[in-house]
Structures are given as structure tokens and as C-alpha cells.
């Protein structure tokens, strides 16, 4: 089971700025181990977010996103106390969802 | 005291000198404690054997915040000079492009490297020196070598006037202790880090008027 994300959602005017850190290897599939064997690709492919349950963000990622990914986006009309949930899904089918409250 | 006896072996090394007294041991005793700590803290791994912490004079005499006495410094420099191997056939200059490649590489001789052959090593030059104008990612531990040959009046490598600076540079690269007893610079020739041809290439990088280093 992957480690939880760290999500910070802060009010900025009438919006909320959301910063997310995800624990993931983001292996490109183009590296070799010390024995010369290709390390299989393993990376987050889809990221989505909801604001009080309503889908607001959808993204597709490739293996060029850096290890332990960072994502920042701004949700319109979000207020303190609102819930922001973020979900990722990787190419092996693993998925994880975490939620934060806008502060 | 009982505490020390029951503690781990590594602490026991240091414990002997304490023997219940609150004051620090004399400096020479601390030297001995530190020497033992260093000898027991490392183990060999891959090509990095324990002989690497057996110091020669040039290392031991330059291992404190104080410079060695004059006689010792003079001996280090004299031994370094005497040990310099001059290039076969009086051929000092190689290919500056190869020299740039060697200067860029900081690889070699760590416990994660697999070969101690000079061909596996870089010169680490940019780690410490500015060299060509194009490379902005350079260190400042050593002096800037930008326009190294040009600043020293080398316009023709075959001119007799160029010979002293060519020989000086070879000696500096081969064993930097020839001129400065406690120089921070690795002894590339003396320690077998770069072979004769690699040294020639670095020489070319520094001295060849066509090298990027010597462009205005």
C-alpha cells in the first residue's frame, strides 16, 4: 500500500490553492539495474481531484513526471472547510485517494 | 567505569583514556585515540581497500589545521619533484577535446566504481576550477584556469619560450605537491589517477592556443 499523499489546500481570495505531494517511484522503464536488467516502468498515469465530491481536475501523466510527484492547481470558488480529495492511479492499477480540508 | 566495560566495542576504543577523569587527555593522546577511531571505522568495499587510510607523508603532514614545519614541507616538495615521470619522447600535448571530456568527468576510484584503471577515471577539473568560458557549472576551490595558456603567453607550443610553462604544468598535474606541500589538488600522475595520454589531453586543454580555454 502506497504512503498517503500530503495535501495542503489554502484559501487564496475566492479560490483555494492545492499543493499535493505523492509518494511514488515514477520509474521510467528506461533505466537498468546494476545487473543490466531493464527496470520496468511504474508511474502514475491518471490524477483527478474533487471539490466537495464534485470532479474538478483530470490529468494524464507520463513517466517524465519526477519521482515523488508534486502538483499544484487552483480550485475556483472553494472556501475554508471545503473538502478537496485527490486520487492517483498508476500503470500497474494501484490507486490511492486522500483528502484535505481547505484552510 | 563499569558502564564502559559493558558498552559496545566501538566505544571501548575511546573509553580507555577516560578512566574516570573529567579533564580531556593531552593532545597527543587524543591524536592516538582519533587514529584508532579512524582505523576501526572503515571497512574495504569493492576497489576501495583499507590501504587508502594508511597515510603517506604528504597526507599525514597535511592533516590538521596547521601547516607542517618548513623542513617537512620542503621534504614533501622535493620528493614530489623527484618522483615526476616526464612524458615519453618529450611529447606533452594531446587533444584538447579529449582534455575537455576528462576535465568534465568527476568519476572514478570510489567504492561504486569497478576498475582502478586510469581509463575509468575523470580529472574532476571543473569540480574546483573555472576552465572554459562555456561551462558555467564550475567550482571555485582552485583558481580560475580560463585563458591559462594565453595569460602565460603561450601562442606557439613549439616555441622555446613555451617550454618552461609546459614543464611547470606537467609537474603540477603529475604531482601538485611539487610546488605546494599541502596543495588540495589530487596527485594525478603520482597516484595513477590519469595516465600519460590523459595528462597530455588535459595539458592541451590548458595550453593549446586552439583550446576553448584560450579563446579571448
Amino acid at each position, binding site marked *: 500500500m502506497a504512503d*498517503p*499523499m*500530503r*495535501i*495542503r*489546500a489554502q484559501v487564496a481570495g475566492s479560490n483555494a490553492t492545492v499543493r499535493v505531494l505523492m509518494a511514488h517511484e*515514477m520509474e*521510467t522503464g528506461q533505466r537498468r539495474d546494476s545487473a543490466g536488467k531493464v527496470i520496468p516502468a511504474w508511474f502514475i498515469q*491518471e490524477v*483527478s481531484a*474533487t*471539490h466537495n*465530491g*464534485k*470532479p*474538478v*481536475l*483530470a*490529468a*494524464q*501523466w*507520463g*513517466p*517524465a*513526471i*519526477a*519521482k515523488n*510527484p*508534486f*502538483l*499544484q*492547481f*487552483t*480550485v*475556483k*470558488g472553494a472556501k475554508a472547510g471545503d*473538502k478537496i*480529495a485527490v*486520487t492517483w*492511479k498508476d*500503470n500497474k492499477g494501484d490507486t*490511492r*485517494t*486522500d*483528502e*484535505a*480540508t481547505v*484552510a | 567505569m563499569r558502564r564502559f566495560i559493558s558498552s559496545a566495542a566501538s566505544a571501548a576504543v575511546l573509553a580507555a583514556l577516560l578512566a574516570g577523569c573529567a579533564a580531556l587527555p593531552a593532545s597527543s593522546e587524543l591524536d592516538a585515540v582519533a587514529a584508532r577511531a579512524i582505523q576501526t571505522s572503515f571497512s574495504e568495499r569493492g576497489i576501495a581497500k583499507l590501504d587508502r587510510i594508511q597515510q603517506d607523508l604528504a597526507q599525514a603532514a597535511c592533516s590538521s589545521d596547521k601547516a607542517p614545519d618548513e623542513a617537512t614541507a620542503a621534504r614533501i616538495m622535493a620528493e614530489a619533484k623527484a618522483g615526476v615521470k616526464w612524458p615519453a619522447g618529450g611529447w606533452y600535448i594531446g587533444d584538447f577535446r579529449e582534455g575537455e571530456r576528462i576535465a*568534465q*568527468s*568527476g*568519476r*572514478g576510484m570510489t567504492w561504486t*566504481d569497478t576498475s582502478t584503471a586510469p581509463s575509468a577515471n*575523470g580529472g*574532476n577539473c*571543473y*569540480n574546483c576550477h573555472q576552465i572554459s568560458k562555456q561551462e*558555467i*557549472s564550475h567550482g571555485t576551490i582552485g583558481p580560475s584556469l580560463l585563458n591559462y595558456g594565453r595569460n602565460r603567453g603561450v601562442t606557439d607550443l613549439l616555441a622555446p619560450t613555451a617550454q618552461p610553462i609546459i614543464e611547470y604544468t606537467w609537474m603540477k598535474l603529475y604531482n601538485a605537491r611539487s610546488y605546494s606541500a599541502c596543495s588540495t589538488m589530487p596527485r594525478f600522475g603520482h597516484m595513477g589517477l590519469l595516465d600519460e595520454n590523459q595528462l597530455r589531453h588535459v595539458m592541451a586543454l590548458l595550453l593549446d592556443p586552439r583550446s576553448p580555454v584560450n579563446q579571448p
Partner: protein
Amino acid sequence: MTTRRDLLAGAAKVAALLAAAGALPAARAAWNNTAFEAKSLADAAKAFGGGAPVESKEVTVTGPDIAENGAVVPVGCATTLAGAKRLLLLVEKNPNVLAAAFDVNDLVEPSFNTRVKMGQSSNVYAVAITADNKVLYAVKEIKVTLGGCGG
């Protein structure tokens, strides 16, 4: 610092509930394999149904001039185009150019920041694709330096 962990409380449970309620966006458009295998800006844009790329001041790409390490390079893409439906981030000299694609809608600002890997110094593109399949871009060169002892 102390509040961050509080923000996470019970997240997994909540998510399970949300998912069960169908609140999370289901695997909408599948991952665009063709786009992520593209070797050029034009091919990546085409994989999303876009036309020929044109440089535009209405798209911005952000990032440092110099990256101390290519393994993590902070970059961002944004647009002021009213009709944008998608924003892409691309690294020209990576083996596959596309790094990320974000859907643009009325609920989020059309501005996203993330971090990419760069094998070497390269142009980085932010690309906006509009509802009528126009492809507009901004470009910035990011230099990746050799750092540390290099061993």
C-alpha cells in the same frame, strides 16, 4: 507544520465512500498512449486531435532558467485563452516529449505546476488545445547543469 497531518485524517475512508457514491471522476478518457509515445510537439498535439502548433502570448510556460538537477525540474503551464480545453507540458529532448496533460474546465484555474525529469538541457513547451482544436504554445529553454562532485 502542525496542521498538515490533520488535513489528512481519515482520507482513505472518505475516498472509499466517495468512490462508492460515484463522486470521483471515473476512468474518463483512457490514458492517451499515442500522445505519450510522441517524439515531437506536433505529434503529441495531433494525438489529442489538435492541428498545427502556433506560438502564442496567451499561453505561458514557467520554470527556472537553470536546473541544478535534471531529475526534478519545477515547471508550469497556463493559458488565458477562453476556449482552451486542455493544457500540455512537453520536454523537447526527452525520449518521449509529453510529460503531462491537464483537462481545462470552469472549475479550476487553467494553470498547473508540477515537476518533470529532464535528461539534458532542453526547450520546455506549454501547449493549449482549444475546443476547435487549435494548438497554441509557449516555449522556454531550461539548462540542466552538472552538479556536485559528479562521481
